[in-house]
């Protein structure tokens, strides 16, 4: 085996590893290019490791290759530190943004409630000025009236049912049904007219 080739076993890879390691340091330090630096450092470490293995097997000099490995590891360290720094900062920014959004939501809800209350007050004021009475009391009375009306309709329905059962004539039953339908239609039309006028 040639002695000179034995002495330089792994040297090519060591030189490549050294250059990559040297370049990975400035790129790894800067926030803009740390990923590029990381790739260079990993390549440098890989090439240096392989070159070291070849040199050891061939009993060649390993000084340069070890230096390449160390420099690549330093570059790797810088890149990883920068990456961790960026990720940590992004998490802080995300949490601050989330807190801001939550605060805005709370403020929006509070503002919405205040708006709703002021609209409700304005509505009641307008109602009272026209109708002359308190809205709540009017609604309570209206509810009672509707309830009693509902009871009366139910009672009328029961009476009609009882009457229909006693009918012997089909025509009489038809006439009663028409009368009931007409009465209900008139009532609904009157109710709709009143609502449309308002």
């Amino acid at each position, binding site marked *: 085996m040639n002695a000179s080739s034995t002495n330089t076993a792994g*040297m090519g890879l060591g*030189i490549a590893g*050294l*250059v990559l390691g*040297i*370049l990975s*340091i*400035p790129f790894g*330090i*800067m*926030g*803009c*290019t*740390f*990923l*590029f630096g990381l790739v260079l450092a990993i390549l440098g470490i890989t090439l240096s490791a392989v070159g070291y293995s070849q040199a050891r097997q061939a009993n060649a000099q390993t000084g*340069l290759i070890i230096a390449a490995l160390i420099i690549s590891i330093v570059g790797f360290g*810088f890149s990883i*530190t*920068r990456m961790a*720094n*960026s*990720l*940590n*900062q*992004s998490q802080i*920014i995300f949490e601050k943004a989330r807190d801001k959004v939550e605060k805005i939501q709370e403020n929006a809800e509070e503002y919405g409630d205040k708006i709703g209350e002021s609209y409700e007050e304005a509505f009641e004021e307008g109602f009272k000025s026209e109708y002359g009475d308190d809205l709540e009391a009017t609604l309570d009375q209206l509810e009672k009236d509707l309830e009693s009306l509902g009871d009366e309709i139910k009672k009328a329905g029961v009476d009609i049912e009882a009457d229909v059962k006693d009918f012997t004539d089909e025509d009489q039953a038809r006439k009663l049904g028409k009368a009931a339908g007409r009465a209900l239609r008139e009532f609904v039309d009157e109710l709709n007219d009143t609502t449309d006028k308002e």
Partner: protein
Amino acid sequence: MTHVYQTINIVLASCIILIFIYYAVFSPDRSRHPIPSVHTLITGEPTASTGLSRGFSAIMRFRFDEARNYNIYSIRIFLFFLIQFFVRIVILLSGQIVAEMGQSRFVMLDALASGALFIFCFEPFLRDLLRF
């Protein structure tokens, strides 16, 4: 000078030339450098090195005031690479001096000087990196 040291200097000088060519090709005005700022992409915030690419591109066009506006450290970092480039060329051309001095001693001196220059030029970024 041994073949190994020569090769390392040639490769480093070539890499620096490629860096200069990259920044000479892309204009600082339109900001279309292919390598994006990863930190800004992740966080949305600028960093100490934001604007460095545009600064380098401006320096390559001899617009030094503009380079300072993009990033105040751009000239300092650019000088580091420029000095390193000239040092590599000088070492390649002065093989006799290296041989007389003794290569090991020269390499050690080269490594220490380059390291010191690196720390001086990149000191703001190192501070930014180690501030968590």
